[in-house]
């Protein structure tokens, strides 16, 4: 309590928040590496297909399953070639777009829908709350893979439809979390203060409640992001995910797994891309959780560890 007071006195002269965030990121080397890796993935997703589409789809049956680390080849063949002789590195870069689109799309959709429903359930009438919570129960007890199969059966397995499926399955997480948070936050005094000022329910929900619960939800979203990439890959494994010639990392892993014993690199590299991305996200989420927690924050703030 007292320490908190002392710190606030100092925070008055704190550096710019962005600079401080970067400084805290610099302190945690794991998180820094994660952030850098994610930046690379992001750039691949944005520009990869435009730059490498042609290279990545060029089949070369005579050069199939070309082994990796043959540096006499062009750079995009350094990680080897797939079962149709297409360069793996180029394909991984190109596939980043779909993979990210599915993951970002699904997470954002479920975040938006789940949070909205959760806040409505938490802030408005008991009736609405009951209906929404039952809906969450139904989705939760509906096996997510099954939902995926059903929806992808009815709709063609496009990136967009995959996003819908994955988003639906993740909604309850945000719904329940935001509802629980809202139930707590709505009792806080600043919400009452807003009510006293005559603020409408909409204003209270979006101006007062949402910004407060958002950090928690963003942390969950980061973890979910990793989960969605893995689920997408599992769907591909079961043959109901994205279909070629579209590519995602998950699809690449599942296509390559048949060759695990003979040409390990086919599924290893995309698998590694998934692992590194999800790992980075998890590390970053961890870091974020610490950075957002005033009690833990000092761990990222202290310059040098001195022990007596």
């Amino acid at each position, binding site marked *: 309590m007292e320490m908190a007071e002392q710190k606030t006195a100092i925070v008055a002269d704190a550096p710019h928040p962005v600079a401080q965030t970067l400084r805290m990121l610099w302190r945690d080397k794991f998180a820094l590496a994660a952030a850098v890796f994610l930046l690379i993935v992001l750039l691949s997703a944005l520009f990869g297909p435009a730059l490498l589409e042609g290279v990545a789809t060029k089949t070369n049956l005579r050069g199939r399953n070309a082994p990796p680390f043959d540096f006499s080849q062009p750079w995009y063949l350094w990680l080897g070639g797939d079962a149709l002789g297409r360069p793996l590195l180029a394909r991984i870069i190109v596939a980043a777009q779909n993979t990210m689109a599915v993951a970002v799309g699904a997470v954002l959709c479920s975040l938006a829908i789940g949070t909205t429903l959760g806040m409505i359930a938490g802030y408005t009438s008991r009736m609405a709350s009951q209906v929404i919570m039952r809906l969450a129960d139904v989705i939760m007890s509906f096996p997510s*893979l099954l939902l995926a199969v059903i929806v992808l059966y009815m709709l063609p397995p496009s990136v967009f439809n995959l996003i819908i499926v994955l988003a639906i399955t993740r909604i309850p997480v945000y719904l329940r979390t935001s509802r629980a948070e809202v139930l707590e936050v709505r009792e806080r005094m600043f919400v009452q203060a807003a009510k006293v000022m005559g603020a409408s329910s909409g204003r209270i929900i979006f101006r007062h409640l949402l910004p407060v619960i958002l950090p928690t939800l963003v942390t969950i979203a980061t973890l979910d992001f990793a989960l969605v990439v893995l689920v997408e890959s*599992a769907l591909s494994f079961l043959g109901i995910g994205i279909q070629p010639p579209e590519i995602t990392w998950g699809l690449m892993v599942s296509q390559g797994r048949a060759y695990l014993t003979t040409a390990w690199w086919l599924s290893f590299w995309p698998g590694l891309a998934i692992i590194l991305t999800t790992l980075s996200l998890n590390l970053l989420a961890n870091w974020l959780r610490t950075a957002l927690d005033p*009690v833990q924050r000092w761990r990222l703030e202290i310059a040098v560890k001195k022990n007596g």
Partner: protein
Amino acid sequence: MKKFLWKRAVASAISLICLIILVFFLSRLTGDPTDLFLPETATQEARDNYRRVHGLDQPLVSQFFRYVTDLVQLNFGESVRRAEPAIDPVLRGFAWTLQLATVTMALVTLAAITLGSLAAFHVGGFFDRVATFFSLMGASAPDFWIAIIAIVVFSVGLGWLPTSGTGSVWHWIMPVAVLFIRPFGLILQVVRGSMITALNSAYVKTARAKGVENRPIIFVHALRNALLPVITVIGDQTAAILNGAVIVETIFGFPGVGKLMIDSILQRDFNVILAAIMVTAFAIFILNIMIDLLYAVLDPRIRY
């Protein structure tokens, strides 16, 4: 207490009914099982016949009505694919899945709580970093990938473990290990986060002022308080396994309900899908009620 259970039962029943309606109509939207069941060469006559025998020629609403009428008498209908009542393979599969979920989650809970608590106590230290890194790493890998590599390494390469199937305790090791990884990573993180908060709490300060040793501070004072968010996640993860450890079941030839569900939907064996969903949903509702009761056991402030 009684009122709480009653309310939960009613809420669950409502959810279950919604679920049945949803699955009944959604699954039928995927199409007709006739073409899948009959050989490609079958005549139109044979197809009509098949639809008649399985009641697929009726309007959807009357099919639903018939299904519900049977269901009230606990008749889940026949499997169109298998020569047996739809509930039979479901119960068989569910028994396996339940065992798998129980064993896995028991191990996960034990390991994640112990290691997560220790990581929280040494937060920022070497152990914490290593535990966090490896748990995240494990949780980040696609499970079918791990499963196949495990078979290649431990069965084919080293010959330590049987590749797949059931039978001895050795057959359980790889499926459980593969299923273990993701919930372990997740729960370890939740335990760690929750324990960090608990270890920073005022009552832990009191305990330190009382001269209590570190071990009881971690595992007695902080842990019980930190467990509430943890058991929620444990519940969710258990539910996820109950809902079908499809990948593990597929690769390790484990006769669980998850693979059955996927196969049934691919074969459009609607009655089996419905029976499977009802059984797992029922189990999950029971699980959720148990979790709620566990809250009250762990935290005397919670009373229903």
